[in-house]
C-alpha cells in the first residue's frame, strides 16, 4: 500500500492542478492577512472558503483521478498486490497531495505573518485540521461514487451532487425542517443532523475553537450549550474521524467485490 501511495503522491504533486491549487491558497492567505491585518479575522474568512472549497476540490480530484487512472489500475490489479492496497494507496495519495497543497499554501503566508510566535497558532491549526479532514472525507466519497459508476459522466454528476447536497442543500432542508417543526423540541434532532454533515461539523469545530459565539449559528450554539467547548471540540473531531474511516472501509469492501 505504501508503494502505491508513494507513487500516486509523486504523480499528483507534480501535476499542474496541484500547483494551481497551491498557488490559490498562497495568494488567498497573503491577500487576506494583508487586508484583515488580524489573524483571527483572516482565519474566519479563510474558514468560510476552506469548508466549501476543499470538499469541492476533493470531490473533483478524486473522481478525475479514479477515472483517469483506470487503465493503469488494471495493470496494477494484475500485479502481485492486494486490491485493497491499490485503492487505499491511491486514495491516500490523492488526499495527502491535496492536504499538502492546503497546509503549505496557507502555512507559508501565516508563517511569514509570524503565526509561530502568536497565541493564534492553535486557531490556525484547527482550521488546517478541519481542511485536511474535509479533503480526506470528500476524496473518499468521490472514490466510492466512481467505483460504483462505470459511466464517467454519471459518476461525475453524482459526485458533484453529493458535494452540492452536503454544502448547500442539507442546510436548506435543515432550516426548513426547523421552521416546520418549530412547535416540537428540536435540540436532539439538530445535534444529530449536524453530526451527519461533515461540512457543518467542521464549521462548528473551528468556531468553537475560536470561541466566537456570534458566528456559531443555531446548531453551533446548541453544540456549545450541550457539550461545552472542550467536549464539543472532541466530539466533532471524533465524528470527523469516523467520517473518514467509514468511507475508507467502504472503498475497501466495494473494490474487493468489483469486476474490472
Amino acid at each position: 500500500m505504501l508503494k502505491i501511495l508513494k507513487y500516486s503522491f509523486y504523480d499528483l504533486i507534480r501535476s499542474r492542478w496541484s500547483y494551481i491549487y497551491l498557488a490559490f491558497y498562497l495568494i488567498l492567505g497573503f491577500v487576506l492577512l494583508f487586508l484583515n491585518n488580524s489573524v483571527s479575522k483572516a482565519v474566519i474568512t479563510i474558514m468560510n472558503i476552506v469548508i466549501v472549497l476543499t470538499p469541492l476540490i476533493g470531490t473533483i480530484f478524486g473522481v478525475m483521478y479514479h477515472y483517469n487512472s483506470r487503465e493503469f489500475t488494471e495493470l496494477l490489479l494484475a500485479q502481485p498486490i492486494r486490491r485493497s492496497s491499490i485503492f487505499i494507496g491511491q486514495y491516500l495519495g490523492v488526499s495527502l497531495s491535496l492536504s499538502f497543497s492546503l497546509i503549505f499554501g496557507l502555512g507559508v503566508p501565516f508563517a511569514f505573518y509570524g503565526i509561530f510566535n502568536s497565541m493564534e497558532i492553535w486557531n490556525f491549526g484547527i482550521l488546517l485540521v478541519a481542511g485536511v479532514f474535509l479533503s480526506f472525507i470528500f476524496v473518499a466519497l468521490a472514490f466510492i461514487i466512481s467505483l460504483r459508476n462505470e459511466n464517467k459522466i454519471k459518476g461525475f454528476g453524482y459526485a458533484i451532487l453529493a458535494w452540492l447536497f452536503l454544502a448547500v442543500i442539507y442546510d436548506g432542508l435543515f432550516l426548513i425542517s426547523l421552521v416546520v417543526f418549530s412547535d416540537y423540541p428540536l435540540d436532539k434532532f439538530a445535534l444529530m443532523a449536524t453530526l451527519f454533515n461533515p461540512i457543518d461539523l467542521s464549521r462548528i469545530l473551528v468556531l468553537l475553537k475560536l470561541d466566537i459565539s456570534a458566528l456559531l449559528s443555531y446548531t453551533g450554539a446548541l453544540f456549545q450549550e450541550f457539550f461545552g467547548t472542550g467536549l464539543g471540540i472532541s466530539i466533532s473531531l471524533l465524528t470527523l474521524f469516523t467520517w473518514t474511516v467509514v468511507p475508507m472501509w467502504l472503498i475497501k469492501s466495494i473494490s474487493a467485490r468489483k469486476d474490472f
Partner: protein
Amino acid sequence: MIKIEGLSKRFGNVSALAGVDLMIDTKGVVAVLGPNGSGKTTLIKSILGMVIPSAGDIFFQGKSILGNWDYRKSIDYLPQIARFPDNLTIRELFAMIYDIRGKGAIAEDDELISLFGLKPHLDKKLGNLSGGTRQKVNIILAFSYENPLMVLDEPTAGLDPVSLVHLKDLILKRKEMGNTIVVTTHIMSLVEEIADQIVFLLEGKIYYYGTVEDIKKKAGKDDLERAIAEIIMKADA
C-alpha cells in the same frame, strides 16, 4: 498449470462465460480466439483475478486463485491499452513496478530498452509520450520478467511494423524457454505464425480446443482465417 472448472460469469443479465472447463498444461503459445463478445477478455481477466467468477473455480499451479493475490508473482501480463500516470517518468514507472514485484530496478543498458530505442526517453514524463511509445513501455514492462505464465491481451494493437517484429521475436523466445503464453488476438496471421494451440470461444463456451492443424481439418479449409470464419458462420446458422 491452469485448470478452470465450470467457470461462469454474468454481468447483470448478460452471460459472458457459461460453464468453461479448460486445462492448459502445455508449454508454448495458446491463442484464445472468438468473435467480439465471446468472453475472451473475461476469461483472461478471470485468470488474472480482475473479474470475480459467478460460479466455478480456477486453479493455478494446483492452488485456487479465488481470494488470492500472491500467485500473480508467477504471471506476466501485457494489457491491451497502455495508460500510465502522466507525471511519472519511464524510469520512475519501472522503479514502481519493480518495487511492487520485489526485484531491482531495470538497468539503463537493458536489452529490451535498447531494442525498442527507449533510452533517450527514460526521463520523459509518460504523459508527454506518444501512444506507440507508451505501448513499447508496456511491452518492456511485461517482458522484463521470465515467469512461467504470460498473458497477452491483443498485443499487436497500435504497434509499428518494426516493433511488431520485435514483439513476435520476444514471444518466440519465451516459447523456446518453455513458458506458457496465453494470447488473445483477432489477427489470424499472427496465430498461424506463433500459436501451438487454439481455444475457440463462442457465446461464453469453449467451442474448440486443440491444435491449429486440427481446427483447419475440422472446418475443411486450408486457411486458418477461413476455417474460423466457417465455424462462426455455422454456429450462427
